[in-house]
């Protein structure tokens, strides 16, 4: 385990922003932190990254690296008047990292940026800025990277590219990655584990798929013969072209899928859970 | 005022017909001074005024009879014009009469005192007094009451009894004629305005130490 935060509390005046949050991260693991706006995600990340002090709780970072944690908070903060190369140079120098021009150029290439581009980064697209921010977060080879809302402002292509990079960092370099978002779609496929935070408390935690499924109250079922299925006719469904939106009732999804798979004339191809956000953010009983 | 009235009264007195002639000792002094055709001199100027701080300045002067004195210096120098009138020609410029007051003592020395009174309004002074050492015909002191710039006392010292030109000149004058603009930048709040008023009556002096070269005489 690289990072272990226990019972972290933070208040701003009378407003209690974090009410005893515990979270951990291991090498090579991708953890997601999901919650609505104002849930305390950014505050927690600022505390983990040392920008904000905590009122109570413990934070252990088990790493011998000179830079154990790297991170980006919200949008990456860059020196807009410097080029990408110069930004990396500046951030390298301030932490005493001796890098040659070739080193910096290869770091730019690793995040998909061209080292030949000399114009200031204020001219860059959001996706390019995110990639440069990631390169800066990765300077000095941290063992853990914390990314706060890294997908915000990116187009679907940009999101996909960043997801691939994150996966690569975790799997190939064994970096523990903690990502926050308020978007399920972005985190669902990416994360190994998920924490759900709401109103300053962790309301759910566990393997990502399990968490998302627990909060699923409907499913999109893909297949053929669905429109004439008797099993589906008995359930609360909305028929769409090529799929059916099934709203769960008393039966579990497993039971319905078992009956559908044995129903003649029906061929199932996929079943995608539709997580109900209200259910997701609801606190699970102790 | 009283002394002026006295002079006018004595002038009217017939027993002083001799005052309409130029005093013979003054004539002799003038003739001696007129014998100088030209000279060059190095002047060291020292200012002695309470609120002026100026280091000793040096200048070169050139005198040629009949021409204005010329001055050259690397530094800024301000030399009183009265101090440069070695031959007292400025006193003789306009018609004048003299009044001999006979022998007087000046700092322990016997002197012949002559008053020079211009007889025209065009003159820039109202009366001048000249103390002359009768044996050497050297002018020891002049006191000039100017119309615009107050009273000058000029003291002359010589390096020898035969010298016509003085080696040291002290020009003492009133400093009320010097206007200092208070709003000049600087620590103006430190100016003691009471002191400023006093300086209106203050007297200052400038010392000229002169070394002559190339003296040409008739």
């Amino acid at each position: 385990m690289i990072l272990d935060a226990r019972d972290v509390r933070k208040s701003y005046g009378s407003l209690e922003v974090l009410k005893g949050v515990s979270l951990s991260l291991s090498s090579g693991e991708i953890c997601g932190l999901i919650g609505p706006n104002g849930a305390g995600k950014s505050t927690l990340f600022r505390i983990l990254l040392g920008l904000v002090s905590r009122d109570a709780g413990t934070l252990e970072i088990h790493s011998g690296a000179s830079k154990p944690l790297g991170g980006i908070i919200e949008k990456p903060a860059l020196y807009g008047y410097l080029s990408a190369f110069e930004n990396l140079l500046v951030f390298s120098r301030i932490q005493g990292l001796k890098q040659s021009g070739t080193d910096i150029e290869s770091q730019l290439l690793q995040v998909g940026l061209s080292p030949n581009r000399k114009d200031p980064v204020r001219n860059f697209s959001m996706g390019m800025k995110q990639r440069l921010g990631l390169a800066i977060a990765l300077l000095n080879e941290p063992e853990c990277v914390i990314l706060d809302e890294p997908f915000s402002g990116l187009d679907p292509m940009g999101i996909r590219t960043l997801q691939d990079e994150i996966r690569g960092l975790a799997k190939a370099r064994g970096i523990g990655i903690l990502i926050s978002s308020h978007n399920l779609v972005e985190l669902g496929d990416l994360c190994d584990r998920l924490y759900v935070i709401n109103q300053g408390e962790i309301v759910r935690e566990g393997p990502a798929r399990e968490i998302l499924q627990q909060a699923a109250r409907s499913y999109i079922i893909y297949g053929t013969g669905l429109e004439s299925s008797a099993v589906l006719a008995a359930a609360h469904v909305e028929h769409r072209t090529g799929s059916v939106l099934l709203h769960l009732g008393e039966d579990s999804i497993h039971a319905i899928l078992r009956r559908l798979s044995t129903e003649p004339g029906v061929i199932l191809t996929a079943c995608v859970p539709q997580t109900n956000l209200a259910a997701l953010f609801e606190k699970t009983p102790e | 005022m009283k002394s002026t009235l006295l002079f006018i009264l004595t002038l009217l007195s017939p027993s002083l017909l001799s005052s309409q002639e130029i005093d013979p000792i003054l004539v002799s002094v003038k003739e001696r001074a007129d014998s100088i055709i030209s000279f060059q001199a190095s002047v060291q100027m020292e200012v002695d005024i309470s609120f002026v701080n100026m280091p000793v300045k040096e200048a070169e002067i050139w005198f040629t009879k009949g021409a204005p004195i010329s001055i050259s210096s690397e530094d800024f120098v301000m030399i009183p014009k009265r101090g440069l009138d070695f031959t007292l020609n400025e006193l003789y410029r306009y018609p004048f009469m003299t009044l001999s007051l006979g022998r007087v003592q000046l700092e322990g020395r016997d002197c012949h005192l002559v008053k020079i009174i211009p007889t025209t309004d065009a003159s820039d002074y109202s009366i001048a007094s000249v103390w002359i050492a009768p044996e050497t015909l050297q002018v020891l002191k002049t006191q000039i009451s100017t119309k615009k710039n107050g009273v000058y006392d000029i003291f002359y010292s010589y390096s020898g009894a035969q010298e016509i030109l003085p080696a040291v000149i002290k020009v003492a004058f009133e400093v009320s004629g010097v206007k200092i603009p208070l709003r000049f930048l600087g620590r103006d709040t430190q100016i003691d305005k009471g002191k400023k008023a006093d300086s209106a009556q203050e007297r200052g002096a400038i010392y000229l130490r002169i070394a002559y070269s190339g003296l040409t005489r008739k």
Partner: protein
Amino acid sequence: MRNLIRTELFKIFRQRKTYYAIAAVFVLEAFIMVSAYFQGREFLDVFLENLRESFEFQGNLLNGNLIIYLVLNSFWFHIPLILMIVVSGFLTTEYKDRTVEAVLLQPVSKRNYIISKYIAALVFTAFILGILIISTFLLSYLFFGQGDLVVFLEGLSFYSATEAFNRLMIAFLVGSLTMFFYAVVSITLAVLFQEATVTWIVAALFLIGTTLLLRLEFDSEWVNSLFFPKLTDSWQYVFFSEIPYRTILNKSLVLIGYTGLIAWIGIRVFQKRDIT
């Protein structure tokens, strides 16, 4: 720490606004020099006016040394005003762009970061002062030549060209301490207020207030020795006929103490504050 300072200076000189500020300082210097010429001429016309009848003059008092002296008088309000705006921007811009947090996400301590800001501010101030001083002397002597300096300060003082040059240099050096003080104040104000416009307003108020307080006369020797506005014009003592070196040294040391104290306040506040 050296890396941080080098990086700060690198960032300062890569920004276009730094050069705008330097240009503004030079334009201001040119205005001040032209104004000094006309002021000097007016002063000398008045001063010499009725002396001309009684004195022969040689030498020109309206020379480079007088211009430099008059420029020196004007420097200590106009230049700090620009400097405070520029120097406070070294930090307020980083707050605005959130690069403060980006830097602190690296293994850089808050203490070292803010100290490097103070040091960079001092280096930049020294740089600006250096080129200002050199250009003032060069241009003044080039256009107006050398000569005696006349100063009206506890009397009328005349200094030879060589002595004037030396005194003017010492005055600039002593006055530089005041500029360093203002530079440190700007960074501390930037720490306290973070937002650029508010910081500029407070900095301008501080400068105006200090200048006004400087003109007040206090009977207390303690106040005159220890109250910081009274320490900002020690350079004037250099033009007293007998230079009171001890007074200048004492005032300078106290001003350095204030500078250190204000820097310490800024460092402590920055260390204690969360980066939100």
